[in-house]
């Protein structure tokens, strides 16, 4: 059984290498965040993983709300307070940051 302590995390507590991601990683982060992942959560996470595979970058929150099939209001209910950060963590991306 893997735990969060077994994962290679960066200084922000996000997955250090997005290529290490597996669905189990998302489940471990979800437990830590107190979220129970439903099909709708997975729709968003899988969308972000697909975009990352295609572009090598995490899509913007606007892109997620326009193209993942989950509308904005629902997105904020699924990932309350700071969806960009939570989605990034669950999908194995690094923390959204400014330049400073």
């Amino acid at each position, binding site marked *: 059984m893997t735990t969060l302590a077994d994962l290679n995390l960066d*200084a922000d507590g996000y997955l250090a290498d997005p290529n290490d991601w597996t669905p189990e990683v998302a489940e471990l982060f979800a437990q830590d965040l107190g979220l129970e992942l439903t099909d709708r959560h997975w729709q968003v996470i899988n969308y972000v993983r697909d975009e990352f595979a295609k572009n090598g970058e995490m899509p*913007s*929150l606007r892109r997620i709300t*326009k193209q993942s099939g989950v509308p904005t209001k629902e997105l904020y*209910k699924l990932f309350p307070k700071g969806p960009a950060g939570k989605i990034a963590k669950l999908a194995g991306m690094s923390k959204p940051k400014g*330049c*400073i």
Partner: protein
Amino acid sequence: MKRILILGGGTAGTLVANKLHQELDPDEWRITVVDRDDRHFYQPGFLFIPFGIYKGKQDVMRSRRRYMPRGVELILSEIEVIEPDKNQVRIKKNNRTLPYDYLIITTGSHTAPEETPGLAEHEWRKSIFDFYTVDGAIALSKKLRTWQGGRLVLNITEMPIKCPVAPLEFMFLADWFFHEHNLRDKVELVMVTPLDGAFTKPRAASILGNILEEKNIKLVTEFNTGEVDPDGRKLISYDERTVDYDLLISIPTIMGSEVIERSGIGDELNFVPTEKYTLKAKHFDNVFVLGDATDLPSSKAGSVAHFEGEVFLENFLRYIDGLDLLPTWDGHANCYIESGFGKGFLIDFNYDVEPLPGKYPLPGIGPFSLLQESRMNHWGKMIFRWMYWNILLKGKPMPVTAEMSMAGKWL
């Protein structure tokens, strides 16, 4: 005769036109720039207008034509559509079609306040202001001249924004401005951001983390603005939190040019998908994208356009001789941060290296200090306007390297 067509005569387009003109044989290459008007703005100067440091348009605006070299054609026209499959661009003026061998897209980015319900409606420029446009900055300067105090809220609507440090600079200058006008005790300064802090990079956070407290600037984090209630004077987030204001300074959604959308070559914010390390458009082999128009994670800022121009030129000269593009663009940015009371910070970073303390551009000497407050940094910023008009835009060598250097940085 081969044709290079440059769309947009802002920072990136102008300096690239100058550099290409210097390098290419005029008997073999024809360079054309298209822009809708002849007004080139020094955008970093907008920040100074609300506080009366710069007075108005006369301090930040010049003719685009004046900065185009003789031999580069400048056409003033709206652009209808880019047709990369036909290697041509259609423009409004005389319904012309401009064919090209190489296209350089430097159409920039602009504020889109209409993206947020309630923002640019009947309270726009009465109790709600922006300073990323010259008209907004001038309107705000008039407001601040008579404002008697209250709760001033600065809101970053969504990421990415251009000049990512400008909101912080605005708050530092506001703190100074209200001190100078003996109003500071009557003004509450609140910054509202979608990020999880004002400083999100570890070294900057550890060095500058207390500066907001010291200046008594409050912070609301992870706030994604869904709408503004202009009558109730409230920001409302998508997760239904609210922030009250008396005076709202908005950094609206920032988007790329509508022509990118009309041409069907952009993403959801009208930014053009661009190769991260070469600046070539992802989907077209004879199209390059520079400056704010790219979808890259580099900052949308003049210094980035400048460094991109240097790296692009070297690569483009290889490319037209049949050599491969080198992955030399590192996302380098360099920004002064005004901190008020005649002082400033300077940061230098790229895709992979966060802002670090040190000296710049000469290691150990400076004269500028990285990630530290100094009077010299402030003077650097004030002198930079002269450098912009007289050296940078004209594509002349600047005393700094395009690729980021670790020399002079402290790990």
